[in-house]
């Protein structure tokens, strides 16, 4: 008996000693795709909405997971750098809202145009800029996407018009709704409803919190913004609506941000830690995608962990670069004010200080 037990244990320990989980991965058969049910969207002035089931392929799933994880880690790294005073100024983080930016990108083409407000790091990444360029812009260095002059709120890329620090008050939105509807412009208006406007909860700020209905004559959808597949399907639906020439449409993404409004806002003076914790444990977008993929055999836990490790490394490298890259030279203070040829002189703080402005 003991001999048999010893033999069995030898075999078992031999199996356990097999090198790297790569071998395990290769030997598993993953499903190619899986069908998931998603929440039905609330509709305004629409007969039918996006589908309630969707197919996620393994490839897409891994891609979305990686992108969301990158955005999450990038935001957390930005938080860290800010607390170390390497990033200064304004910094509005979007961790918790990853499903919005990644899901949106999944539903549109790279040739479509996107413009957003100040919580823009996630969109900057999904629109194609590297984490290096983003972090370097946050730290205000030459390698940044706006050469270090724009900072957190002014990042731009091809077909991505920012990143805007100044944002429209309600009046401007309604003017835009009117013009878009009047001229049937193919425009999706998106409200990332994270339940708070800075420090004011939506119940205290809005006479009607059904933002997807606020377009009035513009049809709208209310979407679960923590579920990336829901966001993707809704975006596809909205994009198809616009492309068919029917005019503008509104999308309200119900989402949540874990951080405060900006780095100077602790985020707990107007909401409870329990609330944040609850959202994190029940509706975290990355966790939801991971659970779905693992449970339907689209990926394994180890594989996803590997992606995590890889992403962490990428972010670490980017942070290194962002910290080490030199700042733009002082001469650039005057650049690009005007497009001017030949360069002209910009008045400085007193009459003997002059900057050259080239463009």
């Amino acid at each position: 008996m003991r001999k048999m037990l010893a033999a069995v244990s030898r075999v078992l320990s031999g199996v356990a000693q097999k090198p790297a989980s790569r071998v395990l991965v290769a030997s598993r058969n993953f499903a190619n795709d899986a069908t998931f049910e998603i929440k039905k969207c609330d509709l305004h002035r629409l007969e039918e909405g996006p589908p309630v089931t969707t197919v996620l392929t393994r490839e897409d799933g891994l891609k979305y997971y990686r992108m969301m994880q990158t955005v999450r880690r990038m935001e957390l790294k930005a938080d860290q750098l800010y607390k170390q005073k390497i990033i200064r100024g304004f910094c509005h983080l979007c961790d918790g809202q990853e499903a919005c930016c990644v899901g949106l990108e999944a539903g549109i083409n790279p040739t479509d145009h996107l413009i957003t407000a100040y919580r823009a790091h996630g969109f900057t990444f999904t629109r194609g800029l590297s984490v290096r360029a983003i972090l370097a812009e946050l730290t205000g260095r030459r390698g940044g996407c706006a050469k270090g002059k724009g900072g957190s709120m002014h990042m731009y890329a091809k077909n991505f018009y920012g990143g805007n620090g100044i944002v429209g008050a309600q009046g401007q939105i309604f003017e835009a709704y009117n013009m878009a509807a009047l001229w049937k412009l193919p425009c999706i208006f998106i409200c990332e409803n994270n339940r708070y406007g800075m420090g004011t909860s939506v119940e205290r700020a809005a006479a009607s919190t059904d933002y997807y209905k606020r377009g009035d004559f513009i049809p709208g959808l209310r979407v679960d913004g923590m579920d990336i597949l829901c966001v993707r399907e809704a975006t596809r639906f909205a994009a198809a609506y616009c492309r068919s020439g029917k005019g503008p449409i509104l999308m309200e993404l119900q989402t949540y941000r874990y951080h405060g409004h900006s780095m100077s806002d602790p985020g707990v003076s107007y909401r409870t830690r329990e609330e944040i914790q609850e959202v994190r444990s029940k509706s975290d977008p990355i966790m939801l995608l991971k659970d779905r993929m693992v449970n339907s055999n689209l990926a394994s836990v180890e594989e996803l962990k590997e992606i995590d490790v890889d992403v962490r490394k990428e972010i670490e490298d980017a942070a290194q670069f962002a910290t080490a890259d030199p700042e733009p030279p002082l001469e650039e203070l005057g650049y690009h004010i005007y497009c001017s040829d030949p360069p002209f002189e910009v008045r400085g703080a007193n009459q003997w200080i002059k900057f050259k402005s080239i463009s």
Partner: protein
Amino acid sequence: MAATAAAAVTAGRLLRLRAAGAEGHWRRLRGAGLPRGFLQPASADGDAAQRRQVAHFTFQPDPEPLEYGQTQKMNLFQAVTSALDNSLAKDPTAVIFGEDVAFGGVFRCTVGLRDKYGKDRVFNTPLCEQGIVGFGIGIAVTGATAIAEIQFADYIFPAFDQIVNEAAKYRYRSGDLFNCGSLTIRSPWGCVGHGALYHSQSPEAFFAHCPGIKVVIPRSPFQAKGLLLSCIEDKNPCIFFEPKILYRAAVEQVPIEPYNIPLSQAEVIQEGSDVTLVAWGTQVHVIREVASMAHEKLGVSCEVIDLRTIIPWDVDTVCKEECFLNLEAPISRVCGYDTPFPHIFEPFYIPDKWKCYDALRKMINY
């Protein structure tokens, strides 16, 4: 409305002058409009009967330009139409939009353009200045040449945020990745005799401290067409203010073909050696008259400069560096009072040629 003369004329003095005039004067003021000046003889009762608007300036046309080809007699609004016509013909991405531009505009600056170029290129917007400029910025960023009209300069303030915070800073904040340089905003500007608070304003000063935009004001049809074409072709967002009182009053020979007058270059209309008078828009004609009055009555030689571009302005033409040490009298400004632009008091508010002449006299005697 500024010119270099003293702002020392007080409201009190004006009231005394007014009371000293005959009763006929006062009745004439109330009924008909602007007097040519306070020193007009009361026997001009023929004017009272006619009740015509009499302006505070006399438009002085420039000689016919010969270097740009065939010319045609045009007033200011026709010169603007001609410039817009040239732009839409040359540049297939050019579009004109604003309130009521489709039928020709409230000042007829866009007459005929919609018929000629189609409703996709000349179209009306809803009543939303902020939306007009915001929309203009958007299409300029995508590469179209956007020519926006704000119906009166007085209405530009809802769009102030868009102009100052968005348009002016677009290139700078994106590190030259994007820009809205192909945006031009045109707007009727300045006093017109009966405009009162909201149809007479000259808001260029509010924009004069905003790096990133250019503000241009012409004095005549010939200047207007050349400067407007330069603004449209300039790769920076420009605001072009058109003195509305000159729309019909200013008539000149203007070339039919497109031509450019450079921005940020002031024009020395008349050279002089004793006093420099600087103005822009309608006021240039006032100071031209002041210059000839000064020459006749005081034997003073005035240099008359039309600034043309308010920002970035031509510092070198107006004053050489460190000129302060060489001035023999302090610089003066003659402008409207620190009140909102009045309705019934407009004749007293305008910095007319007498106020400017008075300031000039004080400077000479300093």
